[in-house]
């Protein structure tokens, strides 16, 4: 089972279209008995059994862009074993071609001296390596437990609705992205934003279209620690040793903290 992904012009994520039960999300209430798939990606794609297995591509017959070759070789040089560079190399190829296309896999296989099958086995395992063409912009909406308690499922619906018209945006519901402090949140091309409200879905699309930083006021990188015990030393030096409590007034109130008394 893979998480749903909205393709351009598609209102519902693919999984649910396949007849996936959605009762807990409040839509349908019948369980399709035979509608399940395998979690192994590609289980429903036919393989040509008459074809010979692909071997390590011949460097003489496989043109590889110079930049890609240099970066993959540099990645291989960083590890004691060149195979460790598989994920960095596939990332680099994905950057070059937008997804891990057969052509991209072939070229990486050629540089790394591995079979394409090996690389495909790795690429299909990881959520962030794409073996199907995808739009340029990624919006990962965290719909895991902490975010869904705070309304991530509604936001995901709103995000899909906002992105239906835009062929450049792919919306995915994602596993916990590790930012439950700003729940509900999303990762827009790697930039963490939250806490999100339903109206933010439209704003994300607008910002992406305009090429602006996405929801700048809600970016995680600007968030300060909420721990009242943190930063006391910095606060003290900023206040010139005078009144350390002045920097963090209400947060320390009523707390038995030796550091708050100079």
């Amino acid at each position: 089972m893979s998480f749903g992904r909205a393709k351009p012009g598609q209102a519902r994520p693919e999984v649910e279209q396949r007849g996936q039960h959605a009762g807990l999300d409040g839509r349908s209430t019948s369980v399709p008995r035979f509608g399940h798939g395998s979690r192994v990606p590609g289980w429903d794609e036919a393989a040509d059994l008459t074809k010979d297995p692909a071997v390590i591509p011949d460097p003489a017959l496989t043109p590889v862009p110079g930049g890609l070759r240099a970066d993959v070789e540099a990645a291989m040089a960083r590890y004691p074993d060149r195979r460790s560079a598989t994920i960095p190399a596939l990332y680099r190829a994905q950057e070059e071609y937008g997804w891990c296309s057969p052509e991209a896999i072939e070229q990486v296989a050629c540089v790394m001296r591995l079979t394409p099958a090996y690389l495909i086995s790795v690429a299909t395992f990881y959520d962030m390596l794409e073996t199907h063409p995808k739009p340029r912009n990624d919006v990962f909406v965290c719909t895991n437990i902490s975010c869904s308690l705070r309304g991530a499922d509604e936001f995901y619906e709103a995000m899909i609705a906002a992105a239906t018209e835009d062929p450049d945006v792919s919306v995915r519901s994602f596993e916990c992205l590790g930012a439950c402090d700003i729940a509900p949140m999303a990762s827009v091309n790697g930039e963490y934003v939250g806490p999100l409200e339903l109206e933010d879905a439209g704003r994300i699309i607008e910002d992406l279209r305009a090429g602006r930083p996405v929801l700048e006021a809600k970016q995680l990188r600007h968030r300060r620690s909420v721990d009242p015990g943190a930063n006391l030393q910095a606060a003290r030096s900023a206040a010139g040793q005078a009144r350390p409590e002045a920097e963090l007034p209400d947060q320390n109130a009523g707390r038995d903290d030796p550091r708050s008394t100079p």
Partner: protein
Amino acid sequence: MTQNILFRDIDEPGLNTLAVYERRGGYEAMRRALTMSREDVLGGLLASHIRGRGGAGFEMGKKISFLPRGDMDKYLVCNADESEPGTFKDRELMQKCPHMLIEGIVIAAYAGGIATSFIYIRGEYDHQADILDAAIAEAYAAGYLGERILGSDHSLSLVLHRGAGAYICGEETGLLDSLEGKRGNPRLKPPFPAIQGLYQGPTLINNVETLSTVPAIVRMGGSEYAAIGTETSTGTKLVSVSGDVQRPGNYEITLGISSREIIYGLAGGPAEGREVKLWFPGGSSSPVLTGDDLDVAYDFDSLAKAGTMLGSGAIIVVDDTHRVIDVAYKLAKFYAHESCGKCVPCREGTNWTVKMLQRIDSGEATPMDLDIMASVQEEIIGNCLCVLGDAMAMPVGSIIKKFRAELEEHIEAARDRAGIGSLENVIPVGVADEHAGPLPVH
């Protein structure tokens, strides 16, 4: 009482740069450690009794002492693949104070006689990875990494490796496979990574928070660090509080304080007029506790005694406006998606649990299904190579146990809604036999 060690200066502007970190006393502990013998550094770590902050809670000093001695390729891997739902402490540490982690890695590698190290960071932490990359470059330029660090005989290389989005790669052997460039499938243990890990060499694997604490342990001395917290859970711990609380975020606590103080005192508790229904004390894979258990002390042993675990230190609070079935369903669906598929009990067990929870909501379930579901959880636990299956089985099992009445109510309501009819009209099998009278004698 809070004694901040990791979060002391966490929001200082520019703390992610070498200059500011050094002004705050950074790399002093490393300088000191490098003048000491390896045995003394390891002795300090052993005396601190610091337990791993990633989930299993194994003592870090012991882990280092398990590494074979002698001249061989040994590896240190920092596990920064923080994917446990509800956990976000490592993210804040790496983003704001990456040099503390690098310093900890240098010291830990020195104690273990290790010359090659890696940080495996999850692919989603793009911003944090960029910061770490810059910090590693700075540390190399300053001579804190590389050949013969500060003129000592300790050399260390450090490579940042980005993962690509797989929860299972946070499991230590899955992480090693992924770092070797394979699919992240866990390996059979033993041999444990300390004996045979990355590239078949002895490998020390520790969490970001554990390694980030190492400089403080060297600075304070192991026994002084051990004085913080309780006897068996020493030191401070970052706790990620999320879910239905008013001030979600990371808090540094002294181990052993009451859970109520964390959930209500620090994080503000659920919104006005709502109650804590259930909470996960250590990430979504820990068995749940209820609102009655709020006074349990927050440390490794007290939580184990309460039938759950401290895990990664992520508290997820669920208040009384949410249905337990939704929580169980979210959990099961996550683990079903993230199961790598290598071991049958986990692959099938997670999948079937999702389906059974769907049946409950569609009105096709009977209370007997709860028993079947509970038995599925029991069959998963302990029967796989890694604990991913257990990570679903334990919380789901505990939810069935503690909220059985609510789930049964829900089954009834769903049957009514679906028009399948009340269970009261169904005569249970045993009862029907009784009504049939004695069996005819032939």
